[in-house]
């Protein structure tokens, strides 16, 4: 059968195939080019521009470009708020990342499981992530209100707070940082769960069953099969979480605007405050640029993790 069709079709299609193959190369470029041009124009150019701004004296009021060397960097380095924001960014990212991965794994197991009312649980879990962050953060703003906070009300009922006492969740440095982290973790955990869910579903079921048949116990399977297989996916989820956390300012902006006394200021919010609110584009660019080396490191790590998934 195969030989019969071969002899029939090959003389006619061989030249046509070659012509198609020749055109495939052009076609591939034609198909890709619009996306590449678009991304180059609106990601590549602004990226170069951001670097150029860092060495300039551009402000919102005076957009003319003058090269000023490292003066902006010096000004930023002499600003204690910058160092504070840098430190906060690391604290914010590290704590959030650990929590997001651990809770994301728990959530992923729930989302993947089969039970009655599954869609309702999924819906309630996904709400936190799919809702525009500005709006969900505002819901939290009420929960953390200085006087009417429902959380304070509960604490008062349990006797943890006196009758007219309040926690001032967003008014004290340590507590406000903790609040920002909790809200951020709450928002990103469903995304991490969805990523890990994808990874869990990609693990072939028969590996676990084969190990079970071979008599491997729960813990042995956990440590020798489940964890090594889940690790790359967990790493991807963690790095996604890290990147989104490291560069995020939405929660900070809505909840505290960086306060009290810049206690919750992170690099992104400080860059926004300086660059857009304050109109000092050059300084904002310097601050934002500090995000880049760390992003690069995270991207390399993601790629290595993805490669490990592919090898498997």
């Amino acid at each position, binding site marked *: 059968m195969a030989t019969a069709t071969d002899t029939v079709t090959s003389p006619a299609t061989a030249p046509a195939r070659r012509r198609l193959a020749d055109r495939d190369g052009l076609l591939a470029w034609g198909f890709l080019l619009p996306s590449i041009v678009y991304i180059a124009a609106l990601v590549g*150019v602004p990226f170069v521009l951001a670097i150029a701004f860092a060495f300039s004296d551009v402000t919102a009021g005076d957009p003319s470009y003058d090269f000023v060397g490292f003066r902006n960097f010096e000004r930023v380095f002499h600003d204690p708020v910058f160092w504070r924001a840098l430190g906060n960014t690391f604290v914010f990212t590290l704590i959030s990342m650990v929590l997001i991965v651990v809770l994301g794994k728990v959530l992923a197991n729930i989302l993947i499981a089969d039970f009655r009312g599954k869609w309702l649980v999924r819906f309630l879990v996904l709400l936190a992530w799919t809702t525009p962050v500005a*709006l969900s953060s*505002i819901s939290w703003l009420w929960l953390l209100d200085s006087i009417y906070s429902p959380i304070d009300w509960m604490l008062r009922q349990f006797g943890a707070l006196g009758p007219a006492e309040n926690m001032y969740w967003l008014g004290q440095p340590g507590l406000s940082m903790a609040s920002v982290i909790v809200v951020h973790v709450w928002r990103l955990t469903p995304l991490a769960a*969805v990523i890990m869910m*994808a990874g869990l579903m990609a693990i072939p079921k028969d590996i676990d069953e084969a190990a079970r048949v071979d008599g491997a116990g729960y813990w042995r399977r956990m440590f020798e099969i489940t964890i090594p297989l889940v690790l790359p996916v967990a790493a991807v989820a963690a790095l996604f979480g890290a990147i989104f956390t490291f560069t995020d300012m939405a929660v900070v*902006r809505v909840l505290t605007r960086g306060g009290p006394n810049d206690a919750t200021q992170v690099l992104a919010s400080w860059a926004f405050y300086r660059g857009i609110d304050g109109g000092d584009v050059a300084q904002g660019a310097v601050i934002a640029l500090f995000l*880049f080396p760390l992003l690069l490191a995270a991207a390399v790590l993601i790629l290595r993790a993805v490669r490990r998934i592919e090898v498997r």
Partner: protein
Amino acid sequence: MTTAEEAGRLRQRYARRHVLARVGLYLTAIVAALICAAPFLWSLITAFKQNRDLYNPQNNPFVFNRPPTSDHVGYLFTDTEFLTFVANTLLVGVLVVLITLALGLPAAYALARLDRPWSGPMAIGIFLVYLVPPSLLFLALSRIVVAVGLQDSTWSLVLIYPTITIPVSVWLLMGFLKNIPKDIEEQAMVDGYSRVGAFVRAVLPLAYPGIIAVVVFAFTLTASEFIYALAFVAPTDQMSVSIGVPTQLVRGDVFFWQSLQGATVLVAVPIALVFTWFLDRFVAGFTMGAVKE
């Protein structure tokens, strides 16, 4: 001990363990769902509270201490531009999704199917673009937006948002396209279609589930984007929901709490419903993009 007894005992033990596992699963699922949705459940109650009920620290925040009122939710529709914000968000979302598909589908097809030696690195390169965050680009982009004359207009968001959605969509679509058997377009080409014809007539209809997943994901991303919307658009009537609601319902120190909470619930529920509906499809796309090579 006979083997039958042993088997029976084992079966019993497994049955008991099974019941325990089910109970544990339901409990953790309910607790997780409640924790995740707690702020929204609260919003739902708060949105219908009277001022005298809400602004009394002694009142139980879980229940209506006075009869519920729909005044504040109504205020959203009669006295604010909430509907304009919703319309802007929908407009931006739909246009961005269309641009994303128009550019992303061919790109994904080129990377998934037209075997070029550079398609692997290029795919990774496009994916990495997704990791370049708005917080790094917004200052430069705001100058570009001014340069092309779109400052203070919703259209600036239509122009910029595809930079976020295209990379991730190409990644997802590649996964779906790779899963379509090659025979299909080969057959179409044997039948006389060109490569492009085969792509449009034979492949695209089969990629329909993937396209839906990308539409949902891209729309969710644009609806919740924050930094660009905050940096580019100042006039109220041009704002999207995520910036418009907080700006118009927070005036100085005065928060229109019930209306804010009402708006949150009104926006949150439809998006989450659609996303839940397509979750399985979305997860499948994510896996295919990462694993199938």
